């Protein structure tokens, strides 16, 4: 947007699918973009039809974080990993969404399967240890990403359940 020239996308010429991956062309999130497409059949073709203006920073969907959970007898440890920004090739430099959205935070929910009680935690770092839990009890964890500026949030991850170890003291 604002540059004044349309760039052709060779990989999306003469295709019959109805989508085209423009991640590479829109990877600079300090810029904004328009895309346009037209259809043709037997020598006839339609007008170009444009998208609305695309701002990669605000008009993107955020995936939930990856959640890994481990447990001891009386505690569970939760490690969260934010998704990475798209990269041109697997060898390319990995950029975490945290670098793109400095205000990124996590909402974590911990459900006690026995009592059915759910607790909420709001954290900025990527690890959370919940101590003093009941031994031999299943807990289910799910997490969401929230960005305050611009206002964005992911859905919740699926639930990861784990049980605290049974009480090792026996008489």
């Amino acid at each position, binding site marked *: 947007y604002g540059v004044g020239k349309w760039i052709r996308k060779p990989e999306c010429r003469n295709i019959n699918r109805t989508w085209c991956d423009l991640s590479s062309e829109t990877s600079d999130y*300090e810029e904004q973009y328009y895309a346009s497409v037209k259809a043709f059949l037997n020598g006839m073709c339609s007008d170009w039809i444009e998208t*609305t203006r695309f701002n990669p920073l*605000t008009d993107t969907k955020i995936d939930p974080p990856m959640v890994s959970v481990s447990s001891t007898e009386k505690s569970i440890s939760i490690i969260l990993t934010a998704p990475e920004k798209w990269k041109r090739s697997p060898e390319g430099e990995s950029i975490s969404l945290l670098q793109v959205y400095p205000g990124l935070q996590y909402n974590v929910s911990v459900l006690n399967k026995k009592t059915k009680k759910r607790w909420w935690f709001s954290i900025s770092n990527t690890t959370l240890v919940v101590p003093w839990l009941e031994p031999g009890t299943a807990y289910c964890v799910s997490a969401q990403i929230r960005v305050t500026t611009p*206002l964005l949030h992911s859905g919740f991850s699926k639930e990861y359940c784990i049980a605290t170890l049974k009480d090792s003291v026996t008489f």
Partner: protein
Amino acid sequence: TAGNRIFHFGHCRVSMSMTEIRLGFTAIKANIQARDPIRTLSILSHPHSLHKVKSSDGCCITHHLFNFYVDKVFKHCKTEDSFINRKISSIANSFLSMKRKLRQCHEQNKCMCEEESTEKFKQILANYEGLNVTSAAIKSLGELDILLDWME
């Protein structure tokens, strides 16, 4: 939805909340940008991107841009749509609040304008004056997220 942040523009530190402006803009973005048919020109981001502004120039450019939007842009953005007009009023009045906060830095000489930032702002004005006033105002309003993204 806390959005109150301390903005550091060189020596100038200002606490501002962008959340309501963001919400207001998001509500009208599609409508306003649809009224701007010109793809080949940007008021704020070409030829100079705001993202290339040195942090020491941040306060000066921001100060100029707040004045630009308040003095030149909002008043020429009246539409036939009452909802849009009310959101523009909300954004415009929020800009006044922020303008007042930034003025404190200006009065404490923490908002110095170096030649580079003055040149950049001149380019923005030239882009603006290159269009008729309504088109320029609507395009500038449609680019508000460029300013907000850069500020944040």
